[in-house]
């Protein structure tokens, strides 16, 4: 276990990507614009040795879609890189080329929130069945099942 990181070090190095804040002990959150996420992750990997992606969380907060990349490393510090995406046509470059384990989370988010990840090798249905209707993203707040749509599996009137 190496030296634990403090907010000051991380904030200093990552200043150009956005402001960092200490959410709680050993959690740091950096808010950054969408187009810089790739760069920020590569930077944080290179400087601090963050070698593992815990997860990518997606949140629909009603106005925008938020993505939070949680990374950790040998110093056992969790750095969360948060971005906000517009609700219409949300897209963000994939990180699966630098973080292989991100591919599976990105596909999941693509399914449930409809966020596009340009550059992703295979962005097909992962969590929903193949015959799930296009353009319906069940974890968005405004999603309502339609009575006349077939969602695959069991018809709605039988749910």
């Amino acid at each position: 276990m190496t030296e634990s990181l403090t907010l000051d070090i991380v904030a200093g190095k990552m200043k150009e990507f956005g402001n960092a804040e200490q959410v709680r002990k050993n959690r740091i959150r950096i808010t950054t614009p969408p187009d810089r996420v790739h760069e920020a992750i590569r930077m944080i990997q290179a400087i601090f040795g963050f070698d593992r992606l815990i997860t990518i969380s997606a949140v629909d907060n009603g106005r925008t879609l938020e993505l939070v990349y949680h990374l950790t490393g040998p110093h056992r510090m969790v750095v969360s890189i948060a971005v906000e995406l517009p609700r219409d046509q949300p897209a963000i470059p994939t990180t699966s080329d630098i973080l292989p384990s991100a591919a599976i989370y990105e596909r999941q988010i693509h399914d449930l929130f409809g966020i596009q990840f340009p550059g992703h090798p295979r962005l097909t249905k992962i969590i929903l069945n193949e015959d799930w209707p296009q353009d319906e993203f069940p974890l968005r707040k405004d999603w309502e099942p339609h009575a006349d749509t077939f969602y695959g599996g069991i018809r709605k009137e039988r749910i």
Partner: protein
Amino acid sequence: MPILSTAVSGRRGSDMPEVVVSIGPHHPALKEPVNFKVVVDGEKIVRLELDLSYNHRGIEKAAEQRDFVRVLPLMERVCGICSHAHSTAFAKGIEEIMQLEIPPRAQYIRTIIAELERMHSHLLWLGVAAHLIGFNTLFMWTWRDREAVQDTVEEMSGNRVHYGMNEVGGVRRDLTPAQVTAALGRLPNLEERINKYVDMVNYEETMLIRFRGVGKLSKEEALRYGTVGPTARASGVDYDIRKDDPYLAYADAPWSVVTDTNGDVYGRTRVRIWEAQESLKIIRYCLENLPEGPIRVPAPKHAPKGEILSRYEAPRGELAHFIRTNGTDKVERVDIRTPTLANWTSVAMCLVNQNIADIPVIVAAIDPCLSCTSRITLLDKRTKRTDIISFDDLSRRMCSRDHGQE
């Protein structure tokens, strides 16, 4: 996924269509619905496609519509084996957002249940792994000894699977001195059995021959593919949330992170059974040093606005609940990243170039919990033709080739 193409060895110069063995969603080796389309060459796996979407239940959506009292039973039902893990991870996150200080007795009780759960999960896994290699005796024995753990949990919580011990602010049931004594009374016997299994895992030839060198994952790969839990620790990655980010009573109890350098199924088996030994230590410590005091604090109905990444070391690995609240009595979003989901990438990687006979063992080695996961992965970028071929094609192919061992 681009990573796969490097690992796939080219087929040995034949234009024959590839044989696709479709395993699952109903198959005796699989305890839960999952589908593998395994492309094989003789008995060797060329690559595989996983399809895990058979029981998506929309729990994350359902959780957004329930208040904090009613969401905990739902969280428990994410998974049967690690039910306490999910409900504790969630309760822990909500409590942190609410800034509640949980009484130490509640912390200890949660720890006891969590470690009992880990122990029963690991014993169950050992049994399943033994069953998958046809060693049914060990399967029966581990499950027999697992009953002792289950009985303890049942006595404490009232149920064998869905313990229902957690609520926001503490635990629901207290441990009576009689229960503590009974639980402590069961431990020596259990310890003896677990030590026996440690011996068996290390020296039993019939297991060594099937587990050694199967599904190997180096430390770099384990990190790269984001593996968690015993799978990662078997490859020498000493990530354990209980040490890295101590919660409950893990900071007090004497225990150490178990790692192994083998990185194969054998290593994962050893890590799991050693972890069961560590669990015993924690349980004994917690039962003996159970602090007095209340078991819960009153929790407010509403949680303030906030977000938290609640990490928990479930039996299968790191479980992460990302919780966002919005000031009401419901969560705005709970994003559950289960350990199995994190481990799938590595499974797909280590299956390549192994034998068909090893599929169940390798898949089981991460202790997959599909009811937690329920996702699809289709791991190949290359557009090679992989139709499910007709039987005639198969027989023609098989007749035309030498079917000796390769």
